[in-house]
């Protein structure tokens, strides 16, 4: 079934006020364009879950979309603090729930597998377990020893950006895979954005590369440069300068509001955002090609 639609339609149909949203991607493939569209459509009271909230949730929280954040590392990766989320937590303006990376991803993995919990070994660190009741212990019936267990995370909607997908939503990803697959399978609905929409024959020429199958996808949106200022392996580089600039800019509430107005609210869609960044930025983020050695599946 052809699931192609505009990002506006996808967000209008599949992201509701109050939803638990998981925008996937660890550093790589973060779907900023979808975050911006959610801001434009004025969603409220979202619970925003991500291992690393990154700038995408800083921006969405600045825009007032969220009432809660679930995370395992609250930083501006490679730069320092994530000022807006941090301030919201420090001031008590927002609820939060926190994990370590592995326990966070283990929750998604349990959700993806349809399991009521997943185990992880004890870490001896006592305090996270004390402040989050989603860490429980179970006795291993084989050894009598305790393990930690965490419950599944089932986002209402997962947002996943990929390099290429067909119109039905069979999606291929390379480079850092993060928790893309787990988030998609764990969620009730999946919005997929892709740098390229390709014919299904391209996907079918390399089925082992398919990370997300059509089956679990609700909307497929063609959104080139969706991940900026994050990146897409093989398509464009991470805009490290932007991550540094945001660190400065986000010191001032006024500047953040100005930026949101100019780069999100006053912008029609992501294509316009990308044009607005300008030629110098486009050039700076360009990369040279480096292709994989092809493999032979054989005709059978």
């Amino acid at each position, binding site marked *: 079934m052809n699931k192609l639609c505009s990002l506006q339609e996808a967000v209008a149909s599949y992201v509701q006020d109050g939803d638990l949203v998981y925008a996937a991607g660890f550093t790589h493939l973060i779907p900023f364009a979808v975050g911006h569209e959610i801001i434009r459509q004025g969603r409220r009271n979202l619970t925003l879950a991500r291992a690393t909230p990154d700038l995408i949730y800083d921006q969405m929280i600045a825009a007032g979309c969220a009432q809660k954040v679930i995370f395992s590392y609250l930083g501006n990766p490679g730069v320092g603090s994530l000022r807006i989320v941090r301030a919201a937590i420090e001031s008590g303006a927002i609820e939060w729930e926190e994990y*370590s990376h592995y*326990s966070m991803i283990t929750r998604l993995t349990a959700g993806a597998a349809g399991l009521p919990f997943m185990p992880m*070994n004890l*870490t001896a*660190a006592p305090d996270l377990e004390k402040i989050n009741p989603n860490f429980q212990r179970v006795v291993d019936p084989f050894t009598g020893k305790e393990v930690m267990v965490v419950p599944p995370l089932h986002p209402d909607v997962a947002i996943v950006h990929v390099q290429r997908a067909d119109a039905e939503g069979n999606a291929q990803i390379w480079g850092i*895979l*993060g928790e893309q697959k787990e988030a998609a399978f764990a969620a009730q609905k999946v919005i997929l954005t892709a740098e390229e929409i390709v014919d299904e024959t391209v996907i079918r020429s390399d089925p082992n590369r398919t990370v997300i199958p059509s089956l679990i996808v609700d909307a497929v949106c063609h959104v080139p440069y969706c991940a900026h200022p994050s990146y897409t392996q093989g398509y464009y580089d991470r805009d490290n300068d932007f*991550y540094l600039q945001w660190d400065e800019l986000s010191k001032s509430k006024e500047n953040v509001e100005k930026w949101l107005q100019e780069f999100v609210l006053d912008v029609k869609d992501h294509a316009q955002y990308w044009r607005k960044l300008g030629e110098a930025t486009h050039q700076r983020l360009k990369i040279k090609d480096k292709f994989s050695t092809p493999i032979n599946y054989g005709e059978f």
Partner: protein
Amino acid sequence: MNERIYSKNELMIVNAARLLQDGELVFVGVGTPNLACNLARRTHAPNLTMVYEAGVIGAQPARLPLSIGDPTLVSGASAVCSMYEIFSLYLQRGNVDVGFLGGAQIDRFCNINATVIGDYRHPKVRLPGSGGSMEIAAWANRCYIMTPHDKRRFPEKVDFCTSAGFLSGRAEREKSGVRGRGPQAVVTDLAIMMPDENGELQVTALHPGVELQDVRDNTGWEIKTATSITRTAEPTSGELRILHEELDPSGIYLN
């Protein structure tokens, strides 16, 4: 040869690099740990395998990675896997020799706080949180901590124990049944401190030009000293050249 033109930061990086052994698998963070590992790989440990929590194995970064998920880590790596896999198949399974950790606070028993200063529910300062460090501290065969040396960073007891050092002493960690042997050394820009038989940190080596009193002045409790304190060798010109010319030519982490 050694012109003593090196920073405190470089002392920390060079000394951390020297703790790594050839052929080991290291779970690396960006910033100074990344510099230390790449320095080791270009000097005494060419067969060091670098693994990043983003799921990259055997990275050979062509440029300085500016985030834990930098694309330069992927291009030319020997394998990429999911985040769940890097933490389970590698770290939890016991395949990681060395983990690097940092944190806002490190205490007397090497416990690490990366979560909050003050009360958890009403934090004075909200820090980034665990990331992968709770698991690295627990499950890597051994860990090293890199951090600048100042009193705020070395309180007697952490406000929040994000990652386990030796808890209230080595016996408590051992009783917990956790697989890794825990922190083996804290490398600062002043000294190297190692846990004693009880898991309590003691100064074992001072960097060139540093006096024991400097360490005492910058540590939040009465730090013990080893029976004999050694002095670390100065960074060689070779080490400094690799750091400045090959690894961080723009001085992003060195300065």
